């Protein structure tokens, strides 16, 4: 009885809050009825100087845009900026409201997927400016997120610079040594259960950019649990495992048992740091380049 209650509760938490791949991603800024950037007719009177970020991806990008020193508080899972005086505020679902208020922030950054709407609503009733971002599911959305965040922070040029670098990297991959025919790929996000990524995820887009054909592309869920049988039947040329540590080792050992698979026979089961394909940040370029390398015929490691 309590077992099923427990799993129901956990289901609710997880499927409303966490995409299985990485921490919640984020994108186009929206702020209740107000958009934070000028093209929606709203602009902060002044550039925020005391920022609280409740999401690791947001924190990472604030730092990447060179505004890390303006962070005064971040969630427990965020990277701590090297400059500045940011303190930790608690988890993503239940950050300490009093703590946040006591920091006197002039801007709180949150994501729709990663933070509870109640937290956002409470903060707003308490008179705190909250900017809620949406999950970025592809590069285009990530770039527009970066632009919005840059505008919000008064770091438009830094944002444009980052976007330019990444667009150049994508262009390099597109025009680089790609396989002549699309290479069939299975993307493994989790081993047990076997979770994959469909189209509509960053890693799915990377596979497509690198001229790969994701065998799970057409599934409706973004990170569905996938049938192991189907992997054997589709017999992909490349298997990409986004995992670290013992999960990566166990995954490699698992696929090794199916020596009939082309990818196993030819040593094309590749391990990839999930942070380079799930975390919205500069390392996405690294992930994309490695995937392109795998598909172009790089050997497994």
């Amino acid at each position, binding site marked *: 009885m309590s*077992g099923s209650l427990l799993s129901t509760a956990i289901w609710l938490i997880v499927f409303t809050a966490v995409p299985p791949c990485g921490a919640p991603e984020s994108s186009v800024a929206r702020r209740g009825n107000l958009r934070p950037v000028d093209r929606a007719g709203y602009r902060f009177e002044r550039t925020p100087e005391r920022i609280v970020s409740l999401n690791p991806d947001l924190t990472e990008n604030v730092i990447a845009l060179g505004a890390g020193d303006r962070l005064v508080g971040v969630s427990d899972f965020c990277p701590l900026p090297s400059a500045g005086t940011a303190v930790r505020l608690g988890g993503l679902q239940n950050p300490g409201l009093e703590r946040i208020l006591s920091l006197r922030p002039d801007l709180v950054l949150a994501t729709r997927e990663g933070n509870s709407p109640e937290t956002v609503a409470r903060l707003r009733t308490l008179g705190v400016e909250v900017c809620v971002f949406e999950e970025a599911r592809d590069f285009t959305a990530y770039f527009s997120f970066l632009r919005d965040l840059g505008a919000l922070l008064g770091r438009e040029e830094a944002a444009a610079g980052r976007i330019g670098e990444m667009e150049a990297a994508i262009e390099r991959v597109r025009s680089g040594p790609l396989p002549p025919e699309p290479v069939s790929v299975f993307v493994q996000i989790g081993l047990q*259960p*076997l979770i994959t990524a469909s189209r509509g995820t960053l890693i799915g887009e990377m596979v497509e950019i690198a001229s790969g054909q994701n065998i799970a592309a057409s599934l409706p869920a973004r990170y569905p649990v996938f049938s192991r049988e189907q992997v054997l039947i589709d017999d992909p040329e490349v298997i990409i495992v986004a995992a670290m540590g013992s999960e990566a080792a166990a995954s490699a050992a698992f696929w090794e048992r199916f020596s009939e698979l082309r990818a196993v026979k030819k040593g094309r089961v590749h391990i990839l740091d999930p942070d380079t394909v799930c975390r919205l940040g500069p390392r996405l370029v690294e992930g994309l380049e490695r995937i392109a390398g795998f598909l172009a015929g790089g050997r497994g490691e």
Partner: protein
Amino acid sequence: MKRAGKRTVFFAVLLAALAAVTILALSRGTVSFSPGRVLQILRSGPGGPGEEPLDAVIVLRLRLPRVILGLIVGGGLAVAGVIFQGLFRNPLVEPYTLGVSGGAALGVSIGFLLGPGLPRFALPLFGFAGAWLAVSTAYAIARRRRFLRIPYLLLIGVMISFISSSLIMLLLSVADLHRFRAVIYWTMGSLDAADPFLLWFAVPVILLGSAAALTRAWTLNALELGEEGAAGLGVRLRRDQGRLFFLGSLLAGTAVAAAGVIGFVGLVVPHVVRLFLGNDHRLTLPASFLAGGIFLVFCDLIARTARAPAELPVGVVTGILGGSLFIYFLAAGRGRTGQ
């Protein structure tokens, strides 16, 4: 005489269903093979690595372990349900009521937090240890010198279950949810064991445990008369009740460790079996073992084919199908006996 005939028919139906569901589960999936081909594959057995045909690889190395795990876990949960319902003489008790699932989930959560560096098979072992700790605590508190206070045991077990659930929520609220993913999927239950170690662990334990439960069927029958009645028949209450309690916990804990928290099998299957066979535990124990396995394998078949190549959590299917089936059987049974 008529009753004995009905029982024979019921067991015959169970065995036929077992054969049918096994063949069906081995032949259906994201691709289907003919039952004849499946039997041929089973007869010829595993070939050398790299030379097996694809259908043999799928049947022998993906579906067969899953079917075996389903039969064993379903059977173990159902037998644990029979034991607990008999021991507590309470039809709402199921294997998880006493904190087995809560304790196991807590164990897995802690194991997971201790480090992603742990080997993979450590997670089920943590689950097993957590389940064992939860039920042992309940037992130790409920025990008095010559008694095992059964109603206390139930209450304390339920409380420990709640405490475990809350502790998991606590861990969830302070931990990185994303890194908790493995725990979360684990609590949903799955027969998709990537690791053959689980089979080697669960199959002997649950088979032996179920056999041991069968040798205690008489005690369970005697307990139907109430504690005093059972004592009058020579049941040594504390010892025998304690053994039953740990036997049920061992079965449930092993099932949970191997396949996560799969609900409903342990609650519903014993009831359905009793509707057909009555209350004699010498019959309901083996029948529940078979019926639990059949039911779980069938639910897993639905879970992996309904939206193939995506898979549903098997607990979703057991809950919906099990609940509906039970209401149906209950309503039909009442109609028949005119109650």
